């Protein structure tokens, strides 16, 4: 909810969130404005922090597959895939080629669904609701395909440790190819609309421009970085799984503004369509799963995957038991969030929703941390309490009922 404007000294601070019409997820922003111009911005995250990283330590590897998939409902397959790849690496097994190809197909279908969802939300923020409705109508094609494959529209649960759960039948291949033909035609149309509609261009051309140097300094990744000319894509830089066979094309734009981000994402949809076509027609024969040990050998590993929003990175450490010792998740939005705060300066307040949506933020992926203020900390006088670091037991006592 937007509270009344607060005046501090001679600056006005406008708080937005955590519940606000322009935000689809809870996050809290404070924009310092001079008239209509934003001169500073800060963000407070953590509203959807659930404590998953700690929770996985008391669940076994198979249970964690389902928990980690639910870090984010939009890129759920990515999270499950990057986790499964990491655990497979630790156990020293590799998923069969057919399973890897199916993982790629689901991952690219997910990229299409995520980018089309973004196109709709971004168009909505720009006031172009017609495009929102059309792109979401067409997105249902992808949802139908994912549902036909997996049985669920979101959280497809395609992965198993050591393979995938379902096969793609020749009938489904036909459906996928038909769906792709339809989506290709629709997306060509959207690309034309976005690049030629003067009203939309008025809101996106030259807005939120980020130079390549800035993008690299702030650590922008994924389509946000690629729109500023940062040539980085895990699928190409460190090919994994079936991406060793089916190569994506790097989509870059030089402009660095919102128009560039529309352009990059729409062209990525086209490329995903091509990849899916190639993969379903050349689907390798064979098994869907390999045997996985229940206990994972001691060791640690990292695994990386290109999520729709940029690089997803997992660190997994095993102590030889059925449960992981530590899993660290690093998701793209937190890095791109820094670009929002920097880009906000010098733009009008009305452009803020567009600039925020431009990075395709995903708060549920993002909220990895929570900061605690202990009650009576000041009164106790700093060092009187057990110091700034809590033990796990102290922490449990503080937050658990």
């Amino acid at each position, binding site marked *: *909810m937007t509270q009344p404007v607060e005046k501090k000294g001679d600056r006005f601070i406008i708080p937005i969130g*955590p*519940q*606000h*019409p322009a935000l*689809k*997820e*809870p996050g809290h922003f404070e924009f310092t404005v001079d008239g209509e111009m934003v001169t500073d911005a800060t963000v407070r995250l*953590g*509203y*959807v*922090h*659930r*404590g*998953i990283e*700690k*929770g996985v330590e008391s669940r076994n590897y198979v249970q964690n597959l*389902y*928990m980690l998939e*639910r*870090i*984010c*409902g*939009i890129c*759920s397959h990515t999270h499950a895939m990057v986790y499964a790849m990491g655990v497979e690496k630790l156990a020293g097994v590799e998923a069969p080629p057919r399973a890897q190809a199916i993982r790629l197909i689901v991952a690219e279908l997910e990229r299409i669904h995520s980018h089309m*969802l973004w196109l*709709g939300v971004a168009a909505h923020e720009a006031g172009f609701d017609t495009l*929102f*409705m059309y792109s*979401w*109508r067409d997105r*249902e094609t992808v*949802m139908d395909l994912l549902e036909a494959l997996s049985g*669920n*529209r*979101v*959280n497809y649960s395609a992965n198993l440790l050591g393979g995938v759960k379902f096969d793609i039948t020749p009938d489904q291949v036909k459906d996928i190819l038909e769906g792709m033909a339809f989506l290709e035609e629709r997306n060509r149309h959207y690309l034309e609309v976005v690049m030629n509609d003067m009203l939309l261009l008025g809101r996106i051309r030259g807005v939120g421009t980020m130079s390549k140097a800035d993008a690299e300094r702030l650590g922008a990744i994924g389509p946000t970085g690629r729109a500023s000319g940062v040539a980085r894509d895990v699928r190409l830089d460190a090919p994994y799984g079936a991406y060793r066979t089916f190569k994506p094309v790097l989509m870059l734009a030089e402009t660095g503004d919102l128009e560039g981000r529309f352009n990059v994402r729409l062209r990525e949809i086209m490329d995903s369509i091509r990849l899916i076509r190639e993969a379903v027609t050349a689907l390798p024969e064979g098994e869907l799963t390999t045997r996985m040990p229940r206990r994972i050998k001691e060791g640690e590993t990292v695994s990386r995957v290109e999520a729709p929003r940029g690089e997803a990175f997992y660190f997994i450490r095993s102590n030889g038991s059925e449960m992981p010792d530590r899993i660290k998740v690093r998701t793209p939005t937190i890095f791109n969030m820094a670009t929002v705060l920097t880009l906000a300066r010098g733009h009008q307040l009305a452009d803020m929703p567009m600039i925020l949506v431009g990075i395709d933020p*995903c708060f*549920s992926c993002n909220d990895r941390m*929570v900061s605690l203020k202990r009650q009576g900390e000041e009164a106790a006088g700093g060092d009187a309490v057990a110091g700034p670091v809590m033990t796990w037991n102290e*922490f*449990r006592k503080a*937050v*658990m009922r």
Partner: protein
Amino acid sequence: MATSLLDSITAGLKTWARVNSPWAIHFNSGSCNGCDIEILATLTPRYDLERFGIKLQGSPRHADVLICTGPVTRQAHDRLLRIYEQMPEPKFVVAVGSCALSGGVFEGLYNVIGGIDQVLPVDAYVPGCPPRPEAIIDGVAKLLASLSNPGPKLSTPASGAPAESAPAAEVAEEVV
């Protein structure tokens, strides 16, 4: 008596208006986004929630129905209460998704309080992870149907304060 007749007519009129054009607000108190995108999908051409007169909009002060997704996290808890308190009476809460029902997969994590009914009185539960858009529409439609022919009284706390117990008026069956 004139006054009671007038009262019953206005009450009937209010229910009629409420059932035919409820305004809803959506709050994510810690969900994974899966339920949120399905709620958004109900607005889009294939499902078109607006044909029931339901409008999703931004301000709690204009809303009749609070659609909640996700388990309640410790950070979002106060915000959720505040939004509920800002809504005018009478108000209804629909919990969407397994997380909102019970905490779902996140049950027991240190930052998760539990389902929505730990915090607010819930009028309709829509199970699923995530529920299909049809199921969400069904849940809201059943809530509306229960308004026009009130059977057992819905749990509407007199003040905005959170009720301890949260009886379910309707449980929408999952449409699979």
